[in-house]
């Protein structure tokens, strides 16, 4: 089983909550979470709908392994049409909310319509109701979580909510849970804000073992897989000690660290904002930025960073509320808030990250948009008179100020909140937006890692590293080492990564397990938990089906093969330094082969044969 086989449908127009059975035919075709949520979304909305209109829907989904004893089995996803991209949006979060939703007995929540005034959804096991959130509107995500727990007199409630950024419909607003875990990308928080839905609070007291199809086999499979994670040097030691931030020096050394809005590929202050630096004692107060690591529900890796800023640092010296320990920077956030803006002040980045968590903003898109704004400022297109901030590249003060302004929706922060595509277009320089399909790049340069260039161009949710993490093969040698500059062989490898990732994202597990686990480690856990056949072949077919379903939604929304591209800077302006000096992304050498291995036409459309093979 593994599924609770129950969906909660919430109609915000009518203010109703109703129960319906999970479509088990679809569950066997799409597994859960990302795949199943996408199937429901695609089946229920017009792909051309305005993402911020009441006609858009939101799916809060769990996987069959969410809430089980499988390591990292606590994930949930939010699937909707994204306002940043106009494409499918699927953002995945850890923490404890997903497992709690499962404990309450739900596989999925479908949110539809728009409430007339701010509300939050309260779920206690089978009971669900909409409650007034007027007193919470205008509050941060941190305050919202605290207030709801107080209201219900239950500190064990789990809350998924938006801060002010979501209310203000910042186009990269995130949905936050457990203070610093986020369904972060593609602006899912703005969709929640557009619906006047402030939060979902859930308390579950049911257990999940009864849902496991074969408990004895499941325990055996899960324990074997946990041993693999513990024995692997990456998941057993590297990630707990350094977090994802260990990549900062690696990627910089390779000349693949986008810097100052992708003008450069190496950052002279990378070491100052790296994972190693987070362990170093500061000269100012003798303490390290990193306090400890942290784990999400059921996780035996614990890559999370818990950080503390020097209380005397300019960003917080008069703000005691930020002087305690909270969620520190992960690699992508450290890059976007740091290298992308030329800022090498680790504590300033940590403060900006705290604010992104507090008010629910994706630090990748936010930081990258600041980087684009700083280039506009460098060119004299933006001025201090217009922005109210002196904002040259490298200014930690500007970063801090712009973060505060964007979180609160003040002044030039409203323009930053549009994301870099709309901001750069507004100032007549659309080519300076480092985005694909409107979403900002993460922390790897597609000129220095050719496969990542192809991955960004073809990602269904816009530029993203988590749809097919080619860094794994091009840098880290997992599962095999590929030459980062080669274009040959990248298309089939990317397809395998994309399809496998779609399976992991649909299972309830964290994709970071795949640094140690291959599909043969994951498959026995799914097979033991779920009724029916979940062979390796079937799982790969499920992954491919999900990828193609997302593609079809995007095509229906009006995107075409012309959107499978990169900004001109990555295609025409060579890397200035590093091992790939002089190189650009040779997308044209890879994209036709990618369409071919996908079984798509030259225009990037799944052929009738492909659709039939996948049952679409």
């Amino acid at each position, binding site marked *: 089983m593994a599924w609770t086989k129950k969906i909660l449908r919430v109609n915000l127009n009518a203010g109703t909550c109703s129960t319906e059975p999970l479509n088990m035919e679809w569950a066997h075709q799409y597994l859960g979470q990302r795949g199943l949520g996408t199937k429901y979304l695609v089946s229920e909305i017009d792909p051309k709908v305005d993402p911020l209109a009441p006609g858009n829907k939101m799916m809060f989904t769990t996987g069959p392994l969410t809430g089980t004893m499988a390591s990292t089995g606590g994930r949930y996803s939010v699937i909707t049409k994204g306002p940043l991209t106009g494409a499918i949006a699927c953002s995945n979060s850890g923490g404890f909310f997903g497992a709690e939703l499962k404990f309450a007995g739900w596989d999925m929540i479908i949110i539809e319509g728009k409430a007339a005034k701010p509300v939050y959804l309260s779920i206690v096991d089978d009971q669900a109701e909409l409650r007034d959130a007027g007193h919470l509107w205008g509050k941060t995500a941190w305050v919202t979580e605290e207030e709801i727990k107080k209201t219900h007199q239950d500190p064990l409630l789990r809350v998924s909510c938006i801060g002010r950024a979501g209310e203000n419909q910042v186009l990269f607003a995130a949905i936050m849970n457990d203070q610093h875990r986020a369904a972060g990308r593609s602006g899912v928080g703005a969709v929640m804000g557009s619906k006047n839905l402030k939060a979902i609070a859930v308390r579950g007291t049911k257990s999940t073992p009864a849902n496991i199809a074969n408990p004895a086999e499941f325990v055996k499979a899960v324990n074997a897989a946990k041993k693999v994670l513990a024995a692997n040097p990456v998941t057993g030691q*590297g990630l707990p000690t350094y977090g994802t931030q260990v*990549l900062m020096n*690696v990627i910089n050394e390779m000349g693949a660290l986008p810097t100052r809005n992708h003008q450069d590929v190496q950052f002279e202050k990378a070491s100052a904002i790296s994972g190693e630096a987070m362990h*170093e004692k500061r000269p100012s107060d003798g303490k390290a930025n990193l306090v400890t690591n942290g784990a999400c529900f059921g996780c035996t890796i614990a890559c999370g960073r818990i950080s503390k800023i020097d209380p005397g640092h300019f960003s917080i010296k008069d703000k005691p509320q930020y002087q305690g320990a909270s969620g520190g920077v*992960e690699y992508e956030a450290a890059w976007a808030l740091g290298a992308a803006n030329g800022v090498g002040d680790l504590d300033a980045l940590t403060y900006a990250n705290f604010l992104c968590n507090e008010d629910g903003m994706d630090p990748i898109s936010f930081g990258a948009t600041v980087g684009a704004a700083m280039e506009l400022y460098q060119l004299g297109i933006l001025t201090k008179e217009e922005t109210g901030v002196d904002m040259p590249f490298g200014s930690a003060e500007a970063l801090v100020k712009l973060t505060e302004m964007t979180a609160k929706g003040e002044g030039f922060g409203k323009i930053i909140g549009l994301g870099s595509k709309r901001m750069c277009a507004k100032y007549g320089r659309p080519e300076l937006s480092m985005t694909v399909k409107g979403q900002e790049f993460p922390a790897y340069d597609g000129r220095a890692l050719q496969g990542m260039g192809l991955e960004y161009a073809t990602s269904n949710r816009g530029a993203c*590293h988590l749809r097919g993490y080619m860094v794994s093969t091009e840098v*880290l*040698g997992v599962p095999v080492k590929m030459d980062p500059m080669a274009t040959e062989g990248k298309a089939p490898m990317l397809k395998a990564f994309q399809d496998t990732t779609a399976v992991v994202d649909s299972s309830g597990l964290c994709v970071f397990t795949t640094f140690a686990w291959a599909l043969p480690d994951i498959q026995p856990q799914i097979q033991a938990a779920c009724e029916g056949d979940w062979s390796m072949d079937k799982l790969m077919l499920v992954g491919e089906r999900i990828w193609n379903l997302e593609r079809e939604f995007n095509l229906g929304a009006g995107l075409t093969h012309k959107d499978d591209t990169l900004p001109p800077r990555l295609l025409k302006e060579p890397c200035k330094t590093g091992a790939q000096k002089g190189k650009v992304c040779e997308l044209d050498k890879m994209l036709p082969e990618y369409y071919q291995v996908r079984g798509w036409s030259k225009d990037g459309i799944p052929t009738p044969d492909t659709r039939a093979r996948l049952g679409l």
Partner: protein
Amino acid sequence: MQCFSGAAFRGVGNGLEVKAELKLYASLSDYLPTESRKTNRIELEIEPGTTVLDLIDRYRLPQHLCKLVLIDGSFVPPEDRGVRALREGEVLAIWPPVAGG
């Protein structure tokens, strides 16, 4: 963990030394001289022909932990590490198995 004086690994002093740089990151930084750990780097003056493997041995780095080996940002595969000599001005950087995202 090993603690060395950087001076112990300087070249033979015949004026023909190759000047290069060694960077050790993450848990491998423990193998650097104490004073170099904060910067993760040490300057080398080594005999011409000194290979990557020679330096891995010299610094007593466990070979199984030398997963990601870069010279000037380019990957040196395991089979080349015994023959690839460092040239003047090159930077050798080594990591244990790491990942991120």
